[in-house]
């Protein structure tokens, strides 16, 4: 199961119609932060769009704003439960003591590192040298410097995108379903899909200590697996993405022995 990539896993679920997938990785020495820690959330990247009849995603300003506000509220509530002290910044000039350009550099670096993690851990391009080493990526000195300048223990990067099937898309799916009765069965044309990922960086070491992806996709338009525009949907997404943070394999093993 560990070897089953995200795409492969997704492909396998097509027949089922829809599914929620989540797969997290952690540094072998990772212990989920608890107690009195300071967490910095950098510019959460949220977009919500409408899935057109033809299958394109049309971004919606109002939905995106609603979803972002809901996610931020859910994130604050969830982190407060763990004892964390959270700051969420929306713009690069909101972090005292850190020049905008340096923050931009860390964000850009994180973006390419995340891409590399997705490629090696989720899309099946496994790196033999990283076998059995958990999540073994780092942002290096830049992230440590950010921690020293800002005084935060961790940085969280969060991406969430949600597409809502439009009326036209649902109607097209229904037409495809109706076709099943005359021998042309195509209800699974693809519907709502939510894709979220997050990475946690330890600002003391610069290492990416934890990474998670949630994919909640429905092949049949009209069936939903969470809607970020509602507070419940956003809370559910934060819970799926961040709520079940597991320790790294070495830490897990030690805990099991005890």
């Amino acid at each position: 199961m560990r070897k089953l990539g995200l795409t492969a896993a997704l492909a396998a679920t097509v027949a089922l119609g829809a599914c929620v997938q989540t797969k997290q990785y952690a540094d072998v020495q990772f212990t989920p932060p608890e107690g009195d820690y300071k967490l910095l959330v950098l510019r959460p990247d949220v977009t919500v769009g409408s899935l057109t009849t033809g299958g394109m995603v049309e971004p919606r300003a109002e939905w995106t704003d609603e979803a972002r506000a809901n996610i931020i509220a859910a994130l604050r509530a969830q982190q407060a439960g763990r004892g964390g002290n959270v700051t969420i910044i929306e713009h690069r000039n909101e972090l005292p003591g850190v020049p905008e350009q340096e923050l931009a550099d860390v964000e850009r670096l994180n973006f390419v590192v995340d891409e590399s993690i997705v490629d090696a851990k989720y899309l099946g391009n496994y790196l033999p040298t990283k076998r059995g080493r958990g999540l073994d990526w780092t942002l290096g000195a830049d992230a440590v410097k950010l921690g020293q300048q800002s005084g935060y223990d961790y940085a969280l990067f969060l991406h969430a995108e949600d597409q809502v099937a439009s009326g036209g898309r649902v109607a097209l799916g229904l037409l495809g379903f109706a076709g099943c009765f005359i021998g042309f069965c195509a209800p699974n044309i693809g519907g709502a899909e939510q894709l979220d990922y997050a990475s946690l960086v330890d600002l003391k070491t610069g290492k990416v200590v934890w990474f998670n992806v949630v994919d909640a996709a429905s092949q049949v338009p009209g069936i939903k697996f969470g809607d970020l525009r509602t507070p419940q949907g956003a809370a559910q997404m934060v819970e799926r993405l961040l709520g079940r943070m597991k320790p790294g394999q070495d830490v897990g093993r030690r805990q099991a022995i005890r």
Partner: protein
Amino acid sequence: MCARCLELTRRSLLVGGGVAAAALHTGIADARIRPQDMVPLVGPGFKPTDVDEQGLWHDMARVEEEIADSNLLIQDPKITSYLRDLIGTVGGPAAKDFRIYLMRIPDFNAVMFPTGFAVVFSGLLLRMRNEAQLAGVIAHESGHFLRRHEIRSWRDQRRKTDLFSIGAMLAGLGGAGAGVYLGDYVQLAQLGTILSLFKYSREMEAEADAMGVKLIAQAGYDPMEMSTVWQQLIGEEQASAVYRGKHRHHGSLFDTHPSDDARMADLKADALELKVPGKLYNDYRDRYLATIGPIRPMLLDDQVKLNDPGASEYLIETLAQDGWNGLLRFYEGEVWRLRNRLAFNDEARAAQSYAAAVVYPDAPADAWRWHGIFLLKQGRTAEAKAALSKYLTMKPDAPDAPWVRQTIG
């Protein structure tokens, strides 16, 4: 019987596809769009009111933030304010709303984003010979915004993919009901949809050209300069292709832009309509060169290091049509030196260029350095030492200064 009429052979598909393609490619689709038909569709301070356009603008805010913080940005205040003034001159009714960013990318390009910010590539500043030419390209980009191309293209794509999906579903259902297979028709329709999206994109580009040429004529620049830009680009691509033993791209059905040749021809026809007979146009070359002067060595350096000697040679020679100088001669030498082909006798050509460069008062320090090194190779030690000490005087803290000092003793 009718099931048989619907049967498609491979040949009929090819013929049908060919006819559809030809119909899309020729005839009315490629008719020139006349500048006088191009009126701006937005006024000053435009803000979207439709839900789809608002979504697009919302997404773009983050993109602009990313570009404004990019480490590729050239932030020379003199050049950036010059570009701002220029888009303010040729920006039509939205002149005051535009933002313009200069990025260090050695390529001929500029991009307008749907919310009214433009990105100009540094390679564009290298290629433009005067302010009028640069104004032409910027006016073309303004044209995209003034004609609301991004949202119109998006709506066109949405409409066509909607129609195609519904059509494909109905073909599947109808085919199943009638007991025939219509998959081949669906594929043909898909190709048609894709081709028509590319054609729409080319139409938008043609509109932006026509709008742009009108804007620069209104601002008092010679409208003919825009077609000259394309003439230069065609020459550059030709030279690059010839050197690499390839053919220049002449345009296809899958292009997002009309072919360079078509654009040049249309822009020339547009300019003839707009040119005021007897008027003397100022191209503001001096003002342009004075502004980009401080970064011109960097622009030339980036170009030469692209390892595209055909294009680099053409570019330098084109710029030199306005007069040779030490900087251009030096980079001409760099093209030969870096190409280093025995068959073309590149070493000797490079040496000649450096020798020619140092005759001009504006020769960069590195021209003296390479001139000295080539003199050394030729055994002309005394002259070499003189050239190298000139290099040291101009650049006392050069990274190779200790070596040079040792060499000249």
